[in-house]
């Protein structure tokens, strides 16, 4: 007897959920792609190469991302900046930047390793292609335009939610951008930055802080 009671008890959960779904009280299935779900803040999606507000590229071609990548899917080569017309601040910029998205496991170690926050991730995950070549994202595809927009390989892709390209994933930093030891062990939540300036982080000295200026709010 007890068995039947338990059986009905179980079915009650199933039935209840079914009813609530039919009545629309609690939807479990989203009709992707007609409807997009809100992703968790730390979702790891497609990469983007960022710029500084003045349009300079952040990537310095240091290859730390390529070095740390467990899938070995990043290829970077650096080059001397033309002092008259530099691509990035400092001596060196990344003139080749490629990620093979077929191999990427979206672990975000590259984001973690980047000393200038040049490579970050967005929330876009629709990246299917019909050939292998298109799965290799080059510097042109990854780099945001001077206004802060992020390009997509197939701009008229109906399935992709282009807005997600503008959403940066949040991440936990293990180190402080200033390299200051007082940051050790302090967890910092931060949305990965697009172009623009950010408030100085706790503990950053006056000298380190890059205070936003009037024309820097793009």
């Amino acid at each position, binding site marked *: 007897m007890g068995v039947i009671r338990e059986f009905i008890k179980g079915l009650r959960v199933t039935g209840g959920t079914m009813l609530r779904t039919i009545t629309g009280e609690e939807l479990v299935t989203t009709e992707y792609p007609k409807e997009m779900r809100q992703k968790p803040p730390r979702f790891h999606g497609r990469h983007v190469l960022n710029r500084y507000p003045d349009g300079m590229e952040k990537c310095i071609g240091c*290859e*730390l991302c390529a*070095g740390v990548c467990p899938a070995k899917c990043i290829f970077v*080569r650096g080059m001397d900046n033309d002092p008259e017309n530099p691509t990035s601040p400092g*001596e060196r910029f990344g003139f080749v930047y490629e990620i093979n998205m077929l191999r990427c496991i979206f672990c975000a170690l590259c984001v973690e390793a980047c000393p200038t926050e040049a490579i970050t991730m967005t929330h876009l995950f629709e990246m299917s292609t019909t050939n292998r070549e298109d799965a290799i994202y080059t510097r042109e595809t990854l780099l945001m335009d001077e206004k802060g927009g992020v390009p997509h390989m197939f701009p008229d892709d109906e399935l992709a939610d282009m807005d997600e390209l503008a959403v940066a994933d949040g991440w936990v930093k293990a180190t402080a951008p200033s390299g200051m*030891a007082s940051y050790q062990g302090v967890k910092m939540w931060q949305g990965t930055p697009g172009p623009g300036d950010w408030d100085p982080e706790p503990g950053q*000295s006056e*000298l380190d802080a890059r205070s936003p200026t009037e024309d820097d709010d793009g």
Partner: protein
Amino acid sequence: MSEAKLVTVTINGVESQVPAGELLIKAAQDEGTYIPRFCWHQRMSPVGMCRMCLVEIETPRGPMMVTACTSPVSDGMVVDTESEEVKKAQEAILEFLLANHPLDCPVCDKGGECPLQDQALAYGPGESRFVEIKRSFEKPIPISELVLLDRERCILCALCTRFSEEISGDPLIEFQHRGNTTEVNTFPDLPFSSYFSGNTVQICPVGALTAKPYRFRARPWDLQKVESSSLQDTAHPRIEIHASQNEILRYTGVDNDATNHGWLSDKARFGYEYLRSDQRLTSPLVRRGGELVEVSWTEAIDTAANRLDLIKSEDGGEALAVIGGAQGTNEDAYAISKFARVALGSNNVDARLDDALASHFLSASVDRATIADIDDADTIVVWAPDLKEEHPTLYLRVRRAAQELGATLVVIHPRATGLDDRASHKLTYRPGGGYELLDELANGDHPEVSQAFAAEKVVALVGIASHADGPQLAESVAALVRRKAVHAKLMPLNSRANTYGALDMGLAPDLLPGRVGLDTIGCANLAASWGDIPAVIGRDTRQILQGLDSGEVRGLVLVGADPINDLPEPSIAVDALDAAEYVIAIDLFLNDSNRNADVILPASGFSEKEGTVTNVEGRVQKVNQIRPAPGQARTDWAILDDIATRMGVSLGLASAEGITKEIATVSPAYEDLTWDSLEWDHRDGIVVPIHGAQAINHIPVALQGSKAPTAKLTLHVARVMYDNGVRLQHSPSLHKLGPGAVAHLNPGDAPSIGARDGHTIKVVTTRGEGEFTCVLDEGTPTGVVYVPFNQQGASSLGSDPVVRVTTS
């Protein structure tokens, strides 16, 4: 060397026996305790600059902190390298070093292989109390065409300054100012134009000195590495080849006792750019109707083989010849030698380009000096090309022997050389007048030199100091040295890097593989493997070229040789190649000599093939492959084996390693030599002949020579490190370093000619004339005009020493 006395020291509680007088840092390292350091280098004198190597030793007054790099061990010494006090000291030193150090690691070439990074991680405090603004300098300043200096990163360890002063002898980089404004820099208007500048980049413990050709090309974790031996230096210094994505990005020196002590000349260090040149030959070319057209390998080999076969059947093997083979591996040289003898049926084969000593003299094993003998010598005689220009590794070894090891150095050369400042005796003579000086020396006219000869251990480096005297002079010098010092050891010098290997493989008209003369009955295995080979001595390079001109030689195979630019008398080569009926070239590039060839076959170059090479002392080392050859290029031996097969002759060459095995069986000197032993047991190489195999027993004889010309001015033409050779032409970083078309005159001669420094002068000889930029230089004696050989924009002047100089 005698066995050093041992003393007992206790390092971190472990007792060990170490040689008395050795520096603590070295003794500890040999016993397995690494003491961190920045400024100590085992090939240089200690300075105690960085204080990173602080350790505690026990003294009667309690523990005392000393720098391990300046403290010799003594008996009973008790050392603690890990005490709390030592750790505190290490942390403090690193905190100070980093106080002014920029956070450049991501863009710093050293990042990833940086001793400062590594030691900061291993021994550093992990944080800094310094919040002040760091010292800043202008970011990298070029201090030479090859090296950049970033003073912000310098930790003032004095490695670069000591190297330049103690090792290479061009003290062009020094500390300036004092206290906390000290910086390392070059002197105003004096670039760091040392032939050895690249070594400072390698030893700099930080990224302060970076090399332009490598800068930003890769990061250490990209690099694949393989050890090899450089073929841009006759001593074959040991190098590590670093490549990424099949492209060679740098060479670094490997520290070994046998050859280079880790040092490389800039030519050997940066001479890889030509390998990735887009001018490399990548597919076989055959001339059709005057034009070179790309064809398949089969077609090219067929074309070449048919024609060689035709000439051979009409006029016999004497109408065919091979020139070259001194730039490749021994395996390639062996294949060339076998190809010429067996397939072509000809002894007309020569790896020397008419600028070398006699083949028997070069490959004689009797009284041959090794590089290690230089260290042991009491007297070193250098009557040879300027070692600094042509034999940089030997230059450093001789320099060290004279400076550190107390050898008496006698330098004889027509003008100033790089060794003069360390020479005990320097004699100069007029080009062409070498025999007169030789007579004087024989008569004892220079007592100080005679006295030097009387020493117990005499090593003589002899070579062609000036083309005006011809190759026989060097042999006569050797004869004189042997007469004056019976136990003297000789090192005959030749310029192209693997000439010794090539001659050991029989690439001379009168030699067979294994240092045997054609006239001696070679080894039985050779006869079995090669069959009947022509018995008459063939033509050397000059005779081959003359034969081509006269039509007696109809077909020529050029293997990696450019006689038009390399011969002291290029006109012979120009005429010969114009007149040649049929020329097949196997090469990396088109050059002046093979541009008009009938068949041009692309060859793989250094680092694109494995094999063995033999250096100036007979040391056989392994060279290794790290990248594929471009396009359809193939190894010399494979190409020649194919041509032979198509001619109906089987050479039986199947792999490079197989060839090494064949060499070991057919050549007495190379007996037992295997790749395994070179790779595992003898990375530094093995000196042949192994087991003292019977080899050429050539005693140098004094020959008669010409007298110095009576002309007012005599011409001295000599090779310099950077010339206009085809490989350097395709190495952009090095090519621009050549002096160009210059003629050096003594300032005393200038007024009578009307020449002024920097102005154009005209130099006329019996063989040619050309316009040169005049350089007034005290190093050139009066009555001598010095012109660097084979320079961009310079016309050839031949080797006749009579010269006329005018101002228009």
